[in-house]
């Protein structure tokens, strides 16, 4: 049964190829249906794999399917294979599951787009690449998928490439990701140097034999790769701009799946991190800072998708905080619940944007719950989940992370707690601005004069169905890993064979855990209450400082640095390149040409001169031979 694991990525690949060949002929909506069918069948196969794995003994839940030897080069042998273990199947389950829902949603959202079939072609290619990433049995196959999702992300961010901002955002994402990819590659070089093998299972068993320096280098460079892909400080800048892409893309790639690849990678490298806990500390600090930083920026954003984008960065920071604290199960748990509620909220915001005729500014929304009841209710469930209100899913996973952070350091826990408060605050602000308060869209109706009487409308069922499913998952997703008894920690037991031996178990007593949970809940409720009094009751003026709205001017600093001193530096390098490197090459070329110009004069084209040359040459040779006594 498990040998069919290759089918999981093969089905979306088939969908991609079919759409490439007959996509434009299928048109709308059949090309979308084909892509959805492929994603759904891939999900079906993944479910089958899950049960096949579940039937085995926990310690035997590892299966490698090698398709062929990919690179046989000297002592470097890389197989093209897939690894089915609890971690990869967990990832594949939510990638294909949420992927299918978002495909379905996109059929409605992309209605009427001239490039309808191309959109689904990219989506299927993305799902294929993402599955390669999570299922690869060694780092290089993962890297192949890693680059694939980066490319698809680029294609899809700049999907509406006639819009200047979309084209620029795509480039920004691509270039920033390259920085991270470099880290991943260097980490692979180090791994091969030290172990002579890139297989994950080999790495897991032999990581303890690595020297401290090597392990630190591998972990650090892997983290640079992860920080690029998962939008951590200082490489987060591409993700807010990536919101230029169509909303289903934001939900699938920039919230639920691709951006969590970094967390997945670090979890795969748990054995290496186990050798060097210092790097874990670095990761935890970067994660906590990113979480806090992005949360502060999110409180002052007015674009409905920008709020969610910064929120995603913040939640990813949470996951890295967990990874750095050795709480891998909590990281994966939060990754899954986050995929549920963040995909839900992105799709919900897409539904709002759709209903508002492409309006994204929350200042022009309000009171939409009357007109879009299903979107509003599902969005509110997502809000409760992310804000950490019990018993919604986000509460349980966030609590696990905060518990892990407490075990690492109370300072990290405090940063996480403040972030939780801010998260509850800005999400409440968003929900009130969009679904409650005054209906501010009426005063802007004349801007949409073409529509006559402008009125937001609820989206079609094909967009609402995924929302309802995701809302259900976001509500009960916490059930995956309830912290009451060992028996209710389903996810922890499931992931035990992969990360169990590297997991850092906290020594907090049951009462202590309860106290931490209460603190987190109180923080959430304070955040909600403050936002409620500001935005609903309007008792206090809004706190939206300019500097936060501009993301602490981080982008501007980079731009002005790159435009000023940075540019001068690059110009010097460019000059050195033009003068030294190119100069040398050009000098050789020019000299060759000059010499040729002199020698070419000999070739007069007069046949009699050539004959004379041959004759005189023959005579001279003869004289030489005779005088030397050769003849």
């Amino acid at each position, binding site marked *: 049964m498990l040998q069919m694991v290759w089918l999981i990525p093969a089905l979306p690949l088939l969908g991609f190829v079919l759409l490439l060949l007959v996509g434009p002929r299928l048109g709308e909506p059949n090309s979308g249906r084909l892509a959805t069918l492929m994603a759904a069948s891939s999900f079906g196969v993944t479910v089958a794999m899950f049960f096949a794995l579940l039937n085995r003994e926990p310690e035997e839940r590892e299966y490698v399917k090698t398709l062929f030897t990919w690179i046989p080069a000297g002592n470097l042998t890389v197989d093209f294979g897939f690894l089915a273990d609890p971690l990869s199947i967990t990832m594949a389950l939510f990638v294909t599951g949420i992927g299918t829902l978002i495909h379905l949603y996109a059929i409605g959202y992309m209605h009427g787009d001239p490039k309808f079939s191309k959109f689904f072609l990219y989506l299927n290619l993305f799902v294929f690449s993402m599955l390669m990433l999570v299922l690869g049995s060694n780092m290089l196959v993962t890297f192949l998928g890693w680059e694939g999702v980066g490319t698809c992300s680029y294609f899809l961010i700049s999907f509406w490439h006639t819009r200047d901002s979309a084209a620029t955002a795509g480039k920004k994402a691509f270039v920033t990701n390259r920085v991270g990819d470099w880290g991943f590659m260097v980490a692979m070089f180090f791994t091969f140097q030290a172990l002579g093998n890139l297989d994950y299972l080999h790495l897991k068993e032999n990581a303890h034999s690595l020297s401290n320096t090597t392990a630190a280098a591998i972990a650090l460079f892997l983290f640079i790769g992860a920080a690029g892909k998962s939008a951590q400080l200082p490489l987060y800048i591409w993700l807010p701009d990536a919101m230029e892409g169509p909303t289903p893309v934001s939900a699938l790639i920039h919230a639920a799946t691709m951006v969590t690849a970094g967390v997945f990678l670090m979890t795969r490298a748990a054995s290496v991190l186990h050798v060097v806990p210092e790097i874990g500390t670095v990761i935890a600090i970067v994660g906590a800072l990113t979480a806090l930083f992005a949360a502060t920026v999110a409180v002052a954003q007015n674009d409905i998708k920008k709020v969610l984008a910064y929120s995603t960065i913040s939640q990813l920071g949470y996951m890295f905080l967990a990874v750095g604290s050795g709480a891998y199960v909590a990281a994966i748990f939060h990754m899954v619940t986050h995929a549920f509620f963040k995909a839900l909220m992105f799709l919900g915001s897409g539904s709002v944007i759709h209903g508002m005729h492409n309006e994204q500014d929350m200042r022009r929304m309000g009171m939409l719950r009357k007109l879009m009841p299903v979107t509003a209710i599902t969005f509110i469930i997502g809000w409760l989940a992310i804000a950490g209100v019990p018993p919604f899913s986000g509460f349980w996973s966030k609590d696990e992370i905060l518990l892990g952070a407490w075990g690492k350091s109370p300072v990290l826990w405090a940063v996480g707690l403040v972030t939780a408060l801010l998260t509850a605050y800005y999400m409440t602000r968003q929900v009130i601005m969009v679904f409650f308060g005054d209906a501010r869209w009426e005063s802007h109706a004349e801007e949409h004069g073409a529509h006559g009487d402008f009125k937001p409308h609820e989206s079609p069922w094909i967009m609402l169905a995924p929302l309802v499913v995701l809302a259900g998952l976001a509500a009960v997703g916490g059930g995956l890993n309830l912290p009451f008894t060992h028996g209710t920690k389903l996810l922890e037991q499931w992931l035990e064979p992969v990360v169990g031996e590297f997991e850092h178990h906290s020594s907090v007593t049951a009462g202590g855990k309860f106290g931490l949970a209460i603190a987190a809940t109180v923080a959430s409720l304070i955040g909600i209450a403050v936002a409620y009094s500001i935005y609903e009751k309007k008792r206090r003026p809004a706190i939206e400082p300019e500097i936060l709205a501009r993301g602490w001017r981080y982008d501007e600093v980079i731009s002005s640095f790159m435009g000023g001193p940075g540019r001068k530096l690059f110009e010097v390098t460019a000059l050195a390149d033009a003068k030294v490197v190119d100069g040398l090459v050009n000098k050789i070329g020019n000299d060759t040409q000059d010499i040729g110009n002199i020698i070419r004069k000999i070739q*007069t*084209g*007069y*046949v*009699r001169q050539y*004959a*004379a040359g041959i*004759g005189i040459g023959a005579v001279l040779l003869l004289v030489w031979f005779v005088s030397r006594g050769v003849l």
Partner: protein
Amino acid sequence: MLAVQTTPTWYLVLAAVVFAIGAVGVLIRRNPIIMFMCVELMLNAVNLSFVALSKALDDIAGQTVVFFVLVVAAAEVVVGLGIVVALLRRQPGATADDVATMKG
């Protein structure tokens, strides 16, 4: 009757003289047909020396080589005259120096 005995040296001197006439002709004349004839002179001077030495050394191989030279010369004339005809058709009265278009 002059009792002069012809020795191979005579033939070799004659061959050298004919070869020199041919070589100088190739170098100083510009008419392609004349140049061709001069090349033929050079080839036949060599043939003459081959035959003379073959007789003197009593070795038939020298005469065999002559046949090869004749065949090659015939082939060369065919190609050469073809070029000359094509050239003169294109540019009547052209000399060898007029076709120096392949100069560097």
